[in-house]
């Protein structure tokens, strides 16, 4: 399904509003939309709401062989899924330009900034390391997917616990969460991406563009930074020329925003930890708003099952007995093999016959007599032509018991072709 195009008047309206320092949702130039961070029931699952934009991140781990170039480092894998749920323009299973851009930016933001201690993910050097996989699913696209996914990914990584492992000699034991408490990842710092959009060739700047604003913007600048004011990555897209001062100004704004967001993440993590410690229920099910008119929840409800057994019995009684099914008539035509229950198995018969040949001497004589005749005729030729010693033996001493030992293994394959050869040579 195609995206509905933005009409010219909508475009003009948004641009004019920006010129007047006004935004559609009433924000100021440097304001972020409301950020809500919640965690799922299992470890490493994080939901981020950035205004109407919704993103879910799920971290999972797996024991794999390390890369050859880095034998004692764990592997980080990031995957941003632009699910068609988020926007009708996103297609299932196709790598669009946007998804490549987002994936790359997230990798640079989280992997290349070395915010996660990958060496601590090594179990046995060169053999077993943890692969940490981060899946980010877009649920609703209302602009600024990058910031939302970077927040979700880092919060999910902080929330994640991997199973404990013990190495004893060659043996690696992975403990289930019941046996030993799972271990959190060691995270040095939390890089967070902040997006700036530029309008009118860089004259106007907005923080956290919404979807409408993203569609009319001229250029985008994404700065990933941690709370120590260290820049982890900068990416400018849209082909806009920026002045040095503009980039400096953006990095200053980013540092403020990043410290705010980091605090929010830490707070959310703390809340979740205390909730888990208290043994209360947590997760998506609990985060569902109760006060909204569109939401409703009911408690555990028993189901009345008094008459179920009688009903089931009566249905079965009323049901007509299935007609007795006769097994389909089978007329084996010579040369047709059939397999199935109650049928004569014709598979592997040849093999058995041949084995029998060698086990009972009388049969062999009868069966091989004809062949022998042939062989006698062509004896000389065959010996000359065939390289195989075994074949020679077959031909020269067909009924001696010692031959059976030699031939058994090779006769099935070679017997048939060799006899063919002979028939060919006959004329």
């Amino acid at each position, binding site marked *: *399904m*195609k995206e509905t195009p933005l009409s010219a008047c909508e475009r003009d309206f948004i641009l004019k509003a920006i010129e007047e320092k006004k935004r559609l949702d009433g924000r100021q130039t440097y304001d972020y939309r409301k950020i809500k961070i919640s965690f*799922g*029931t*299992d470890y490493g*699952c994080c939901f981020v709401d950035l205004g*109407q934009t*919704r993103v*879910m991140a*799920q971290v*999972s781990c797996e024991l794999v062989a390390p890369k050859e170039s880095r034998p004692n480092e764990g592997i980080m894998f990031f995957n941003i*899924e632009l*699910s*068609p*749920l*988020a*926007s*009708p323009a996103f297609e*299932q*299973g196709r790598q669009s330009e946007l998804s490549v851009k987002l994936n790359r930016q997230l990798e640079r933001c989280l992997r290349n900034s070395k915010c996660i201690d990958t060496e601590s993910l090594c179990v046995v050097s060169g053999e077993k390391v943890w692969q940490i*996989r981060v*899946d980010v*699913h877009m*649920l*609703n*696209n*209302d602009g600024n997917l990058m910031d939302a996914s970077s927040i979700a990914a880092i919060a999910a990584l902080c929330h994640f616990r991997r199973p404990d492992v013990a190495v004893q000699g060659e043996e690696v034991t992975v403990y289930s969460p019941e046996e030993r408490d799972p271990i959190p990842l060691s995270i040095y710092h939390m890089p967070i991406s902040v997006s700036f959009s530029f309008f009118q060739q860089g004259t106007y700047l907005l923080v956290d563009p919404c979807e409408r604003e993203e569609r009319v913007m001229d250029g985008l600048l994404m700065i990933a930074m941690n709370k120590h004011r260290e820049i982890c990555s900068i990416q400018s897209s849209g082909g806009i020329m920026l002045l040095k001062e503009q980039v400096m100004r953006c990095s200053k704004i980013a540092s403020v925003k990043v410290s705010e967001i980091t605090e929010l993440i830490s707070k959310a993590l703390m809340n979740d930890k205390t909730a888990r410690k208290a043994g209360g229920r947590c*997760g*998506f*099910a609990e985060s*569902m*708003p109760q*006060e*909204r*008119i*569109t*939401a*409703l*929840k*009911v*408690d*555990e*409800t*028993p*189901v*009345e*099952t008094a*008459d*179920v*057994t009688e*009903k*089931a*019995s009566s*249905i*079965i009684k009323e049901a007509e007995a299935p007609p007795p099914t006769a097994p389909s008539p089978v007329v084996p035509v010579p040369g047709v093999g059939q397999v199935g229950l109650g049928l004569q198995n014709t598979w592997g018969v040849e093999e058995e016959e041949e084995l029998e040949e060698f086990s009972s001497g009388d049969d062999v004589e009868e069966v091989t007599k004809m062949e022998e005749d042939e062989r006698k005729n062509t004896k000389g030729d065959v010996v000359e032509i065939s390289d195989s010693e075994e074949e020679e033996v077959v031909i020269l001493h067909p009924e001696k018991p010692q031959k059976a030992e030699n031939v058994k293994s090779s006769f099935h394959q070679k017997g048939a072709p060799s006899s063919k050869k002979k028939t060919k040579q006959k004329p």
Partner: protein
Amino acid sequence: MEVSAPSNVSLREFGCEQSLLSRPDGSASFVQGDTSVMAGVYGPAEVKVSKEIYDRATLEVLVQPKVGLPSVRERSQEQCVRETCEEALLLTLHPRSSLTLVLQVLHDDGSLLSCCLNAACMALMDAGLPMSCLFCGVTCAISAYGQIITDPTSAQEKESRALMTFAIDSKERKVMMSSTKGSFSVHELQQCVAVSQRASERIFQFYRDSVRRRYSKSL
């Protein structure tokens, strides 16, 4: 081993939120215990020429797993949901158009398929698509001791001998779709159908309540 009379049959607490996403035409998240699924519907909209059906709308169902890419398991769930929805929806009212239903798994703690069905129905209702009837999904598990458990958790699913999911329509409580796993007798199957029909009444009552609440003037 025959099923003993079902004794403690209950549905876990369940809930639903509708129109929680701004982009889709209809959206819902359905929660059953810890299992939760988010559904979004787009359409009726323009359809690709290759998928166009001249006398009715094309329904596409996508199930997104939480980790990794969709696999065979998701494909089979998609098919179960699609066939149920095609039966319930009046697709002939929108010929040559497309309907897309996307289901995102948020957490799997058993009875995932029934949760998907319920979320799908709520999302279709939210999108305001014409339907001939509503539907709901109920999962029944037969434990190793022959007890019927409705709406099982994943731990109960693992221990069970057989697992059945039924989609049940709201008009006559008929079975629209069934998906089973494991071995069971005819009697057990009939009992599970009967239990599911009973359980479906609770869910339809919930649908009714949530719609009433939604169009009420006060909470």
